[in-house]
């Protein structure tokens, strides 16, 4: 009897401990969600008054952003949304083919010794601070662009795209490379045994089989490009007007927030409208993630 009671106590203690551990993990897991919800509500709460008093029309139909004008204060986000999209998409146009080819080379073609040199180099590239990249944009890439295309200066959307491409390349390369390496050798054997060349095997079997990982890498790279601030702030010329092409100076959403937040009256309408920018940016990255999830799932359905 005594013994049994003792046993029960041990069981209860053990269960309690299990329970506490489970809760601990749960809280940790929820932490990311809590932070996300927190950011979302902060942006919404801070931005909502501006949205209410100025109206959606002012933000999304007005083409001019000029919150400090003497005549008429304008809060049009269109120019910077277009700028952000232009710079980001331009970066992806450069980085995606380059990144995938580089990853395929490292994973499938390069000799082990070459791979051991290239891999750490790419990892170092990922560690370069964005301000240094921006610096390169001002003193190297920008002047080069100006010379090649005969513009007065090279601080434009093209410059930003090139720099952001460089910044997102390490992400795209290393994740794509992992995905390509993970493709089972059996697929390649099957292809080679059917008389495919190495190149045909890479393009028609290996890369399609790694596509879900490659898409994920592109989305992560794009996420980095959309949110990047310092580089575009330094290298794109910061003209808050609707860009007419890749050789116009642009000011992205992130750069606008970074430049203006310190110079506004805290709590004022200008201040709050910067939070609206942040909120729209948040929605954009959210949509990018959502779309990539849908694409991934669709792709996996066919290839699974």
């Amino acid at each position, binding site marked *: 009897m005594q013994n049994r009671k003792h046993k029960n106590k041990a069981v209860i203690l053990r269960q309690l401990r299990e329970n506490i551990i489970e809760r601990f993990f749960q809280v940790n897991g929820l932490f990311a969600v809590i932070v996300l919800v927190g950011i979302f509500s902060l942006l919404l709460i801070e931005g909502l008054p501006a949205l209410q008093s100025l109206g959606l029309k002012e933000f999304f139909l007005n083409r001019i952003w000029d919150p400090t004008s003497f005549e008429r204060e304008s809060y049009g986000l269109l120019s910077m949304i277009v700028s952000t999209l232009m710079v980001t998409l331009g970066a992806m146009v450069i980085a995606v083919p380059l990144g995938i080819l580089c990853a395929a080379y490292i994973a499938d073609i390069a000799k082990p010794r070459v791979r051991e040199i290239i891999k750490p180099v790419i990892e170092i590239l990922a560690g370069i601070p964005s301000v240094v990249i921006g610096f390169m944009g001002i003193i190297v890439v920008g002047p080069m662009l100006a010379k090649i295309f005969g513009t007065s200066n090279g601080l434009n959307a093209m410059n930003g795209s090139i720099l952001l491409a460089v910044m997102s390349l390490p992400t795209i390369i290393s994740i794509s490379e992992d995905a390509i390496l993970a493709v089972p050798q059996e697929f390649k054997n099957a292809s080679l045994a*059917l*008389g495919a060349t190495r190149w045909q095997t890479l393009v028609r079997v290996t890369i*399609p089989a790694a596509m879900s990982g490659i898409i994920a890498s592109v989305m992560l790279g794009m996420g980095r490009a959309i949110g990047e601030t310092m580089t575009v702030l330094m290298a794109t010329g910061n003209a808050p007007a609707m860009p007419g092409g890749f050789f116009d100076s642009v000011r992205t959403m992130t750069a606008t927030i970074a430049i203006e937040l310190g110079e506004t009256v805290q709590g004022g309408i200008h201040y709050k409208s910067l939070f609206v920018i942040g909120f729209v940016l948040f929605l954009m990255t959210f949509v990018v993630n959502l779309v990539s999830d849908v694409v991934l799932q669709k792709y996996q359905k066919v290839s699974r």
Partner: protein
Amino acid sequence: MDELILYTEHFNFYYGNFHALKNISMGMEAHKVTALIGPSGCGKSTFLRSLNRMNDIIPGTRVEGKVIFDGNDIYEKNVDVVDLRRKIGMVFQKSNPFPKSIFDNVAYGLYINGERNKSIIADRVEESLTGAALWDEVKDRLDKSALDLSGGQQQRLCIARALAIKPEIILMDEPASALDPIATQKIEELIFELKNEYTIVIVTHNMQQAARVSDFTAFFYLGELIEFGDTERIFTNPKLKKTEDYVTGRFG
């Protein structure tokens, strides 16, 4: 032996310093099934992969001697490996359909050969799947993923994929070792059908299988070809003690 489509002369194979195949000389008759048997590590799979140069992929390997196909040594410098593998197809131990649709799996070999005519491709896919005894099971779901098929179906799909480019020889590396008895039986029946049109070389661990499906049997042991001859004779009246011990299950 009348018509040897493929034969080896004093063939040696090395993985680095390891001498995996020692002085193998044997031939495969056209439209017959030749089985390669022997315990694990005896070199039978290495020998099979040497016949369409799949071992080229493995770094650090080296060959000596000749493998003659259509009158030419396939290890000559001027031989195009890609071309060779289109004539000598292969089916692997582990079924390895591509993560694509059933149709695209079979059509793959045609695409990489530059065939773009849709009706020709569709005809050949049907013909190949029929040839692999799979058509009736998959004809209504050709656009579904090949990975949704059962293990036996996947292996027959791999055979259909190999048939689609009309090879002369099909090499099979333990094609049924991962399958259940019923799926195995289907593969064996299929092999019996296929030898009307193709020459088949099959590696197998399963002695009954070798006895059932093959016309000739080669017994490998420790990288050497111990005995080679008519399947019936090898299993009923082997010349060597070692062969007898192996085929009667005394070691292996």
